[in-house]
């Protein structure tokens, strides 16, 4: 392919990526160094409003935003350096917690509490997704050809469900006297409240995520299983390899690139855990980094949003994902270099 054709092919997608990925990212990065404030004035305002017994008028000195000639609130945007990042990371409190040698105190700071959950959620679900994905793939591969289609369809169902809806479904099964909570209460003959403490909520979140994502891993692995070299399997059998040895020394090495691929995708997805926090309304017990960004973006009763802190927190999330991916990507790179040599 000559250079011109190559550019013509790749040009549109590079343009799209710049427009829809690079530019927004650059804006978020810029916003994370700025704060936008309304310009306020202090005025005496008389407000008349109804009470249970009639109308009451009160005169008060109020701080209210100034509205400009164009009918919009006048705002000013200031460069604040790293102050948004400081407000998210709260280092003085982190240092105080470490000075007191108190993990408990450390875990009371929103960002670090969210990071703790996000990381443990990601790292716990990853091996479970890989394991169950492989298990399902092997099962599908071993069922009779005649029923393989329906089995694949059924095992893919969890993936088809919209994440928030799936989380809500699990919530309704367990909240209050939900069907499954009632069943558990009958089974263990004691009162159970699944949404009253952090660990049960985290358990449900992990369960939900594995249930939701394992089919994706399974379908990828199943595709890989179709290309395993049958000659190698046969020679392994002739050499007297057991089932486990076949899996360990023939099938797994063959699937390795796919395992790396699923790992990459899952790390990126799980680190952005959000639907579970919303679906289970778990903010009192468990929060994630992505939820924290969302919370900064939510307007309060006066209509104010913390755009600066939200931007800082999304940049930190991106840095976190990158750090997590580096070891995996390095492995891929070394493999690639090895093959080229």
């Amino acid at each position: 392919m000559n250079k011109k054709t190559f550019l013509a092919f790749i040009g549109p997608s590079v343009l799209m990526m710049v427009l829809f990925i690079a530019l927004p990212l650059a804006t978020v990065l810029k916003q994370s160094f700025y704060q936008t404030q309304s310009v306020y004035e202090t005025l005496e305002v008389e407000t008349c409003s109804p009470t249970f017994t009639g109308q009451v008028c009160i005169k008060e000195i109020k701080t209210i935003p100034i509205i400009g000639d164009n009918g919009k609130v006048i705002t000013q945007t200031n460069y604040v350096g790293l102050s948004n990042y400081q407000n998210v990371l709260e280092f003085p409190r982190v240092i105080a917690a470490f000075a007191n040698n108190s993990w408990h105190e450390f875990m009371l700071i929103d960002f670090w509490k969210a990071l703790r959950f996000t990381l443990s959620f990601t790292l716990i679900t990853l091996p479970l997704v890989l394991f169950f994905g492989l298990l399902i793939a092997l099962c599908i591969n071993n069922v009779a050809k005649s029923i393989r289609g329906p089995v694949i369809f059924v095992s893919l169902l969890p993936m088809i469900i919209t994440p928030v809806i799936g989380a809500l479904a699990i919530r309704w099964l367990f909240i209050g006297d939900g069907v499954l909570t009632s069943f558990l209460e009958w089974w263990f003959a004691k009162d159970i409240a699944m949404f009253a403490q952090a660990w049960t909520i985290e358990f449900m979140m992990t369960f939900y995520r594995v249930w939701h994502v394992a089919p994706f891993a399974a379908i990828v692995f199943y595709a890989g299983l179709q290309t395993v070299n049958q000659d190698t399997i046969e020679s392994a059998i002739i050499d007297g390899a057991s089932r486990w040895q076949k899996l360990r020394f023939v099938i797994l090495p063959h699937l390795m690139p796919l395992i790396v691929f699923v790992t990459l995708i899952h790390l990126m997805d799980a680190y952005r855990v959000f639907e579970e926090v919303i679906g289970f309304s778990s903010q009192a017990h468990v929060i994630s980094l992505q939820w924290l960004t969302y919370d900064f973006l939510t307007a309060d009763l006066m209509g104010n949003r913390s755009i600066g802190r939200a931007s800082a927190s999304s940049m930190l999330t991106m840095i976190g994902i990158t750090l997590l991916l580096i070891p995996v990507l390095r492995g891929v790179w070394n493999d690639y270099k090895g093959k080229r040599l």
Partner: protein
Amino acid sequence: MFLRKIATAVAITTLSTGAWAACSFDNDTELKSLSNSFDAMKAVTDAMAECGNVTSTLDVDFKDKMPDAFAANPSLYQIGGVSQGTMVPLLNAGTIRPLDDLVAKYGSQLKPSQLIKVNGKIMAIAMQVNNQHLMYRADIFKDLGIAVPTTYAEMVAAAKKMQSYNLVDYPIGGTYKAGWNLGEEFINTYLGNGGEFFGEGNTPSINNAAGLATLNTMKSLTPYMDPEYLVSDSTYVQQQFQQGKIAMANLWATRAGAMDNAEESQVVGKVVMASAPMGSVRAASTNWWDGIVFATNMTDAQADAAFRVAMEGIDTEMVQANNDAAVWLIDGFVAGSAAAGAIATADNGAAPYPSSSPGMGAMHTALGNGLAAFLNGEKDGATALADIEAAYTITATESGLM
């Protein structure tokens, strides 16, 4: 949050074409309204829909959408249902219009007390007043010979007595869902204890004796609540009441009517309304008003139609058909038993929700996010209050209030 959105926004979005007899004129302008979702608001929007061409969205998360929807030009909604809290961002942004000329033209039915005035200009039309009051199962209290509690301490004592009889799952219900609801509960009790939220220059001032007393009161109720109280919002508590699972709760007056709705309630006629429990200074509740506002960014013809439709929505006919759905400010309302608790609460001095303080939005959010750690037992009271003040300070400094 999303589930309530799905449950209410989708289910109750009502669309009406064709005019009905109950409306005095035939509306041919496309109008849209956005408001909170509760029975009284549904009654009003249904009455508006009778004029034709009115689409109403009733959504418990309306306050997140409203400021941006009204700031659009033309505004995405012409009519908005607000309370004194949710009106503030619209008022500050100048996205709701003064109504003096419209009131002069079409508002002859309005009582003077319905006119919300800011610096002399009419900015909203109030339709009802609302507060949280004690709702209790009269049958249980009578059977056990317990007097109606007038303070939180008496509520706890009643709950303790009730627990041994196993008549309900949990003696006390509470709208303690982390976020807005939990913040509101603190504000009620703190104001009941005579607390002030701000010092000079919008600085926070909740880390004090009244604040600690409030936290301890809140915590003293939780052992008698559903252990999942941190996910219980008003609708959840209302349903627990209706299903006979709880015996008392400090709940919104707008929820009182639902107790006697035979279609969904198993406790018809058994729930009685009384004054909210007393704090050390006044009743632990806040008075709210709900009303209607109109967007700045629409044509005058649209504004005319919108105002006339709204007047049909809050007329005497609607009140007579829905007398017990709210404490109406509108002509024709007869205070019945459903309103007794709300009025008693107001008589006991309940304060208005302090929406006029510019920092209240940030304070409410900080409270809603920060109190759960105390109720969970992760923090002690003083630390929780100090952390809430710190969170408020960051937000208030960022937004330029401090």
